[in-house]
Every structure is written in C-alpha cells, then in structure tokens.
C-alpha cells in the first residue's frame, strides 16, 4: 500500500508531497490542478517496466498517436516539457521508501547490439559485427530503495518504436492498474475476469456487481471474435453483454476485476463516480471497501462529486479511522499543494456542509 508520496518535476508538479494515504484514498480539487496527473505519476512509478509507460498516459487522455520524437513521447511527463530537468518520485510502500528517478539521455548507447533477422528462407540471424552500437535517445530510469533496491532501465526511442532496455532489475513491485474516466478495454476486462474465475474468486466480483444490478445471477467471460466479452445473466432467459445492461455496471465490474487482479497492489481510478447513480454510491463504496480488504488492494480515485465524497464517508463508515482519506489539490500561484483530510477532518467537513473540493 502506498503510504505517502513525494513528487518532483512531474507534469504540473514542481514539488508535491502527500504525507498520508490510506487503503481508500480519494483525490479532489478544481480542474487543472493535477488530479489525474497524480494518478498517472503514481501509476508510472509502478508501470516503469512497460515501454508504454509514457505513451499509455497520452492514450488514456484520448491522444492515440504521437510522433516518434522526444518532444512528443518524453517531454509531456516533465514539468513545463523541460527535458533538461530530472523527474523524481519517492513512494513509501508498507514502510519501505522507493525512489524513481527519470532523466532524459540525448545520446543513449545501447550496451548490446541486436541481431537482425535473416532474409526470408534463411534460418540464420545476422550479427552486424562491423557496426558499433548506434546512439539513440532514451529516458534513464533508476530506482533505489531503503531496502537495497538498485535498478536501472532505459526507455529507448528507436526509429521503429519504444523499447525498454534493462541494466539491472530486481523488480518485485506490487501490481498496479490505471483506469481512465472512460470505458476500459472490454476484451482486457473479460480476460482478467477469466483469471479470477480460474482462481475461484468470481463470487467476490459477482457480489460487487449485485450492488448495481440485484437481478444479476452470474457473470461469464464469453469468447467473441478475436477476444472475449463479459456477459451477465440478469434473468431474462439468456446472457447478455454487461455493457448492454448498464454503463455503471460495466464501470463497477471493471474496477472490481482489476482489483481482483492487483492483489497486494493498487488500482488507480479516474473519476470513479462516472456512470453510477448517486443513490447507490454509498453501497458501491461499501462493496469496494470490502473488496479492498479481501483482495488486499488499495484504491486511489479521483472525483469531482461532493455526493461521491459523502457516499464514501457513509459507505466506508465501518472501515475504521485509517480506512479512508481525502486529498484535495490546490493551485497556489505556480505551485500545486496537497491538503490532506483524515477521517476525522473529512467527517467534520461533511457534517458541517463545508466545501472541500
């Protein structure tokens, strides 16, 4: 579980410190204060072994293709697009502080040279022994921790795309997932549900889905074309795609499935209340609180909704004083600062009807 975070130089953050996070942490604030950026930064910390660690962020914001240039692929994650700066993220995970440092390397040289595939019909690989390693551009990503971790990797921008080159990795980071405000890939959700089905955890997901659809009898991952699609039995004589039952159900099911697949880790959810009627929000939070305990999975979610915050406080009333916290991001001139509400402060603000978003 993420207990605290200290970010320097990521997107809009010069320096952002969040001193206390809980198993369910809700993030709020006005537009353009960095709510989604906070989630993206934390997810990048966990997702550092993926070649899509930067481009995935752009895709989740609807930018599906970018030129293969450092300015388009790397610069957006740095404060003010400044590739000369260093980005640092320090996260305390269950008492251990891990730090990720990311810096642009304009003349990265690969330590190895890849063999080129042979021409068609020839099984041998060709090794260009006459050529030295070519320089390329990369992000140098290094990790250190109070437990002795000392990893180094490079996100390399090549003419044919992105690749991760690893110098040292002792990676045993907890699993993490990032859910954007819009719909998730239904094929991916169905595949992940299959994992839970195999592990016998499907009933937990079904219980959560029943909060929104009490008629729900069963859920199935059904092969469809090249992929799979979640289907639900809601008592009409046949199973139908979950997406056709309701958008809210699809959203909640997605969150539950990812939580089940991130045991011991974190699921980041942007605009968690999307598609869910306010009258059931408290029960949704209650179910997510139960799932967080059962799957040992932290939720860090953004919201714009006061009703959603009230519902979180109501629905998670049984999770104890350390089960829920709220973080509001404020812009003070050129700085973004975090204001933390522990359970006591959150209850005081809500019971007094005071604005806290």
């Amino acid at each position, binding site marked *: 579980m993420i207990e605290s975070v200290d970010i320097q130089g990521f997107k809009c953050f010069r320096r952002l410190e969040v001193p206390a996070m809980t198993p369910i942490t809700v993030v709020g604030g*006005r537009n353009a204060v960095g709510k989604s950026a906070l989630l993206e930064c934390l997810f990048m910390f966990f997702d550092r072994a993926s070649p899509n660690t930067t481009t995935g962020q752009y895709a989740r914001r609807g930018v599906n293709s970018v030129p293969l240039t450092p300015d388009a692929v790397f610069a957006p994650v740095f404060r003010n697009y400044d590739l000369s700066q260093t980005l640092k993220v320090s996260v305390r995970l269950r008492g251990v502080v891990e730090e990720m440092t990311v810096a642009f390397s304009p003349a990265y040289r690969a330590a190895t040279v890849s063999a080129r595939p042979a021409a068609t019909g020839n099984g041998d690989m060709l090794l260009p022994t006459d050529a030295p390693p070519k320089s390329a551009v990369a992000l140098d990503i290094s990790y250190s921790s109070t437990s002795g971790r000392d990893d180094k990797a490079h996100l390399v921008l090549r003419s044919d795309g992105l690749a991760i080159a690893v110098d040292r990795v002792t990676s045993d980071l907890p699993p993490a997932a990032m859910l954007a405000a819009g719909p998730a890939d239904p094929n991916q959700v169905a595949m992940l549900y299959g994992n839970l089905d195999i592990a016998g955890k499907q009933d937990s997901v079904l219980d959560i889905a029943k909060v929104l659809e009490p008629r729900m009898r069963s859920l199935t991952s059904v092969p469809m074309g090249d992929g799979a699609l979640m289907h639900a039995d809601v008592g009409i004589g046949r199973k139908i795609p979950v997406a056709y039952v309701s958008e809210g159900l699809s959203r909640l099911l997605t969150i539950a499935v990812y939580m089940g697949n991130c045991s011991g880790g974190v699921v980041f959810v942007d605009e968690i209340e999307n598609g869910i009627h306010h009258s059931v929000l408290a029960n949704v939070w209650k179910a997510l609180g139960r799932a967080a305990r059962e799957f040992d999975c932290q939720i860090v979610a953004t919201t714009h909704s*006061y009703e959603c915050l009230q519902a979180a406080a109501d629905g998670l009333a049984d999770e104890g004083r350390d089960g829920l916290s709220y973080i*509001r991001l*404020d812009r*003070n001139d050129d700085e973004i600062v975090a*204001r933390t*509400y522990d359970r*006591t*402060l959150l209850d*005081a*603000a809500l019971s*007094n*009807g*005071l*604005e*806290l*978003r």
Partner: protein
Amino acid sequence: MNSDRLGPSDSPDARMDSPEEPRRHRPEELVRPVRFLVEGATAHGFWTGVSRRLGFDHWQIHDFRGVDQLGAYLRVLLQAPGFDTVVRSVVVGRDAEKDAHAALQSVWEALRKCDLPCPAGPFEWAGDGPLRVCVLIWPQPVRPNVAKVWQGSGMLEDMCLATLPDSALHCADAFLECVESSGRRLKRRAKSRLQTYLAGTEHAGLRLGDATAAGAWNLESPVLSPYTALLSRASSLAGVKPPGTPD
C-alpha cells in the same frame, strides 16, 4: 448571496415547527471575508436576522453546534478552499452560560490547538497577519480591576430581552412567577421568558431567529452595540465598507 443557507422568514407562517436551519442542498463555499462562528442554531438564526436587519452582507455565519466540535471545525475551515484568499476575520461567539470566563477559555483552547491567534479577552483582536481573530461572549461579560477573570453569565435570550424596556417584560415575568409559585421548575428559564414575551406580541410562535428578522428586538440598544460595532470593525479590517458609513 450565498443561496445555500436560507434566511429566516418574515412571514407569520415561519412558526416554531419550521426548522431554524434548513437542509443544506449543496456545500457551503467561503465567499465572504468575515467568518462568524456561533454555537447553536438559535444563535445562528439570531445573527442571521441581525445581519439582515442591519444590511450587513459581509458576514458568513456558521453554527459550529457545540464547543467540543469547534476545534475540528476550525481545522477543516483552515484548509477549506478559499480560506487563505477570501477570509480575513474569524469571529467566534457563544453564550456565557453559567460562567463567562469558562466559556471564553473553551474557545481559547480550540483556537490554540489550531495555532490560530488567540485574543486576550472578548471584543479584542488577535493576529497581525492577514487573518484576525476575535471572541465574543454574550451577554457581555465584565472584568473588574480586582478580578483576574471575566465575570458574567447568561444566554443569548437574556441579551435579546435586555434590549427591551423593563416595562415590556412585566406581564411575561408575572406569568413565569405564577408558574414557578405553583411548584413547577423551569429548566431553561431564559428561553421560557423569551417565548412568553413573544407570545404576547405579533411575533407569537416565531423562533428567536425569525423574531429577530421580524424586528422583535431593539438592535440599536447599547446592549447590542458593542457586538455590531465589532462586526463592523471586522468588515473594516477585511477591507469591506460597513453599511451606513460615508463613501
């Protein structure tokens, strides 16, 4: 105008069965420079009525409900959106009850726990930065030279009735004496006295806040002038021109 908190009604329909503080439909934003924190719905209604009668619209009045909840409320207030940029004065007010000094101390304690400026006594300002803090106790306590503590007791209702001429209360007092002489003990005598008085006026059945808005009390009385003067001063400190002051 902060539309989430409806004011007391002048209508005779606003009788005691109507809630003093209507249900809030959306959260309250900090939009005015003077934050006036009072204990209880009755005080909230009274000061809302006063502000309407006097044309003060620079106060944002909030009921912190009980002094045991004041500390938590202040902590939330300090980090509410807009506090740093909008609020310039925080005034905390409550009944003296049985002991004005104890009432004052309870507010001091909450202020200190939140690292807020702590005034030396009621009607005094503390803080030399952008935020000023003041504490009001009602009825107004006194501090005799020989004493170390503020002396006084009473409730908001006592202060309201003190704005009226003594003759206005003869009938109400006579009635309550009759009740007590029959052996009945009045647990909240100040409230009984106020409602008995109102029962004999055109404001019969109104709660204190609604009666205030309807003009039941003499708001020009010297009993109230230290309070209204201080709240005007709060506006001046916040850079707002109080009503009635020349341009």
